[in-house]
């Protein structure tokens, strides 16, 4: 938004939850947790052994309690993250090895237990290249910390996650139980060295509406406990020990954002309609069911992209039809009366934690993934389709197939769907007979053949993130070519126009669910092209709604027509920016909450 401050006490990461807060740092470093390690006398051995048994029992109770809490507020899939720890607690090897150390080496229970846990964790991580098993190292360490905290619970020196004043928590990473146990009263921000937009702390911060920044890189050892810090969840920045200028800037930015957000919130219940009455549906991209209340609060008129992958990841084996159905049903019910577009599995086989993809692919982006994987392994696909269709009886579900490259794939997928509809009818299970079926337009061949594809489906959703990568042959993750990734490239704008025009000629509606939907200039062009729906991260909805309510379709069309005669993306970008400024100047005086 504004220029970066030229400070060396600032760290940049990924902004995952917006807001600006100023507070004292609480550095949470489980590795540094003070464990009162000591050697014991012979006559203390029995006491330490019974303290250990006691602590293990309490740890089990608290884990079961946490599991129950998460089960009630979320679902079984989230609750089961505590299962590996519960199983470990019952491991006879853990108890016998710890007792051995207490008896033979006369270590106190906390020291003995942590040593065994550390051994386990190291062996575990070194044992395998399987990321699922290696990832369970976190569970082992989490368990170690939990038990050693219980062992030392009488020790006032030991830090717990309870606070008496407002803090910004700075951690390497947050385990599920850390996040769940955090004292929400006083935690005003999260910042972590590791993690991505879908990490537990990110999701929780978003749900609690406190600013969060993840993926900061190495910062823990540069900051001190209790230092003043600014967390900026808009820019994804944390400033440690700010000077008075930085503090003043943060405070004024915070005030401005609060005023702005309050304004935008007033738009919540108003439609996204241009001044001359063209209506665009604004919906949200959703990763996890927990986000839905937050998404609706930002005025989403439905879910334009529900990513169904989370139930397949970070677990052993595949989810059952019932696992899927119970989540889909909850989602459909909570979004009702608005629609939810479920995108079927959009993963490569390597992510499915089964042996569906025995060979490693050199180029997985162009490999056996998404609809291709589903058609090659119809069993997995059928289970998901059954669950989706059954859920459609409880609200408005739509089904969307990703990574379509030809009409043949659509016909194959539809044949499977029809077969399952037939099964459900025979079994007498209810589902929505008029359910809309759509496809993602994210491969250039699909955009080029949009006219023939449009005759097969009820809607299109243009997936620009992949469409841009595939069309321009640019991997966004490769920083050497990332600058070539460009939504304003004339080829992209032509493919989008081809797609929208073809859909409208065949009488179906078109949405768009890439990041460009949240970009005001792109949104302006898309409106000009007649897009029917835009799906984006919920936070962007009020802003885009404000933009749409401030323009005329006629103006947007005029601007859009102009760009197709321009040759370079920088010319296009400059032209649209100028044109938009012109519109803004004209309408500056009008309030954002107009009655059109």
């Amino acid at each position, binding site marked *: 938004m504004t220029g970066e401050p030229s400070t060396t006490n600032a760290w940049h990461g990924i902004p995952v939850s917006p807001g600006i807060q100023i507070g004292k740092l609480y550095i949470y470093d489980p590795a540094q947790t003070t464990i009162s390690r000591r050697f014991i006398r012979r006559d203390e051995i029995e006491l330490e052994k019974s303290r250990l048994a006691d602590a293990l029992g309490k740890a089990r109770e608290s884990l079961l309690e946490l599991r129950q809490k998460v089960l009630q507020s979320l679902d079984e899939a989230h609750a089961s993250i505590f299962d590996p720890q519960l*199983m*470990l607690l019952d491991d*006879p*090897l853990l108890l016998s090895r710890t007792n051995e150390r207490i008896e033979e080496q006369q270590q106190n229970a906390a020291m003995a237990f942590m040593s065994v846990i550390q051994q386990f964790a190291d062996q575990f991580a070194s*044992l395998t290249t399987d990321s699922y*098993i290696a990832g369970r190292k976190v569970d082992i360490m989490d368990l170690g910390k939990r038990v050693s905290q219980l062992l030392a619970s009488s020790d006032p020196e030991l830090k717990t996650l309870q606070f008496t004043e407002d803090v910004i928590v700075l951690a390497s990473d947050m385990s599920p139980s850390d996040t769940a146990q955090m004292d929400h009263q006083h935690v005003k921000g999260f910042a972590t060295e590791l993690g991505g937009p879908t990490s537990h702390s990110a999701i929780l911060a978003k749900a609690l509406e406190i600013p969060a920044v993840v993926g900061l890189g190495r910062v823990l050892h540069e900051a001190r406990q209790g230092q003043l810090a600014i967390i900026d969840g808009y820019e994804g920045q944390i400033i440690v020990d700010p000077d008075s200028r930085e503090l003043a800037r943060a405070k004024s930015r915070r005030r401005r954002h609060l005023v702005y957000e309050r304004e935008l919130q007033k738009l919540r219940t108003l439609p996204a309609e241009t001044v001359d009455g063209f209506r665009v549906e604004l919906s949200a991209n959703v990763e996890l069911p927990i986000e839905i209340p937050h998404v609706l609060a930002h005025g989403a008129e439905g879910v334009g992209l529900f990513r169904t992958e989370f139930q397949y990841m970070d677990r*052993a*084996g595949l989810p059952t039809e019932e696992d899927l159905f119970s989540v889909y049903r909850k989602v459909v019910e909570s979004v009702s009366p608005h629609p939810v577009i479920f995108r079927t599995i959009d993963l490569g086989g390597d992510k499915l934690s*089964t*042996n569906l993809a025995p060979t490693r692919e050199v180029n997985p982006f162009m490999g056996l993934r998404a609809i291709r994987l589903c058609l090659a392994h119809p069993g997995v696909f059928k289970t998901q389709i059954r669950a989706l269709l059954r859920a459609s009886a409880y609200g408005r579900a739509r089904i969307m197939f990703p990574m379509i490259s030809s009409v043949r794939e659509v016909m194959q997928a539809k044949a499977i769907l029809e077969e399952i509809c037939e099964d459900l009818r025979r079994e007498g299970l209810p589902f929505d007979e008029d359910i809309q079926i759509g496809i993602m337009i994210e491969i250039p061949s699909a955009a080029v053949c949009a006219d023939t594809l449009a005759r097969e489906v009820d809607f299109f959703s243009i997936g620009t993130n992949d469409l841009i990568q595939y069309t321009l042959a640019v991997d966004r993750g490769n920083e050497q070519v990332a600058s070539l990734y460009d939504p304003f490239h004339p080829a992209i704008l032509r493919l989008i126009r081809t797609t929208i025009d073809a859909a409208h000629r065949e009488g179906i509606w078109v949405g768009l669910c890439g990041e460009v939907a949240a970009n005001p200039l792109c949104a302006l062009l898309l409106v000009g092209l007649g897009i029917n729906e835009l799906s984006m991260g919920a936070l962007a909805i009020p802003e885009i709604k404000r933009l749409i309510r401030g323009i005329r379709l006629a103006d947007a069309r005029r601007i859009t027509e102009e760009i197709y005669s321009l040759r370079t993306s920088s010319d296009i970008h400059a032209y649209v920016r100028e044109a938009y400024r012109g519109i803004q100047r004209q309408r500056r005086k009008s309030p954002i909450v107009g009655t059109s």
Partner: protein
Amino acid sequence: MTLSKVQNTDCGHCARVVICNGLGLHLRPASQLVKLASKFEQCEVTLTKNGQTINAKSIMGVIMLAAEQGSEILIEARGDGSADAVSSLVAMVESGFGET
């Protein structure tokens, strides 16, 4: 299969089996195996692979055995119900842990 025939030992039973499921003793099959072994409370159950012997009631032990598809393990049980323990564990391993 002759390999998995349950045999008598000094104070219990044993059998050799080959891990046939694709994932090997991954976390989920390992935990299924531990749960089953733990049901035989009066029995000491061990698994041996390449000379390494572990307690079959320990999830850490079973996972650290790192038994992949195709590896041969020896299941041994001593104590009350050892025949039962060995034969039900053999059946579980040979069923491929219900993997599809």
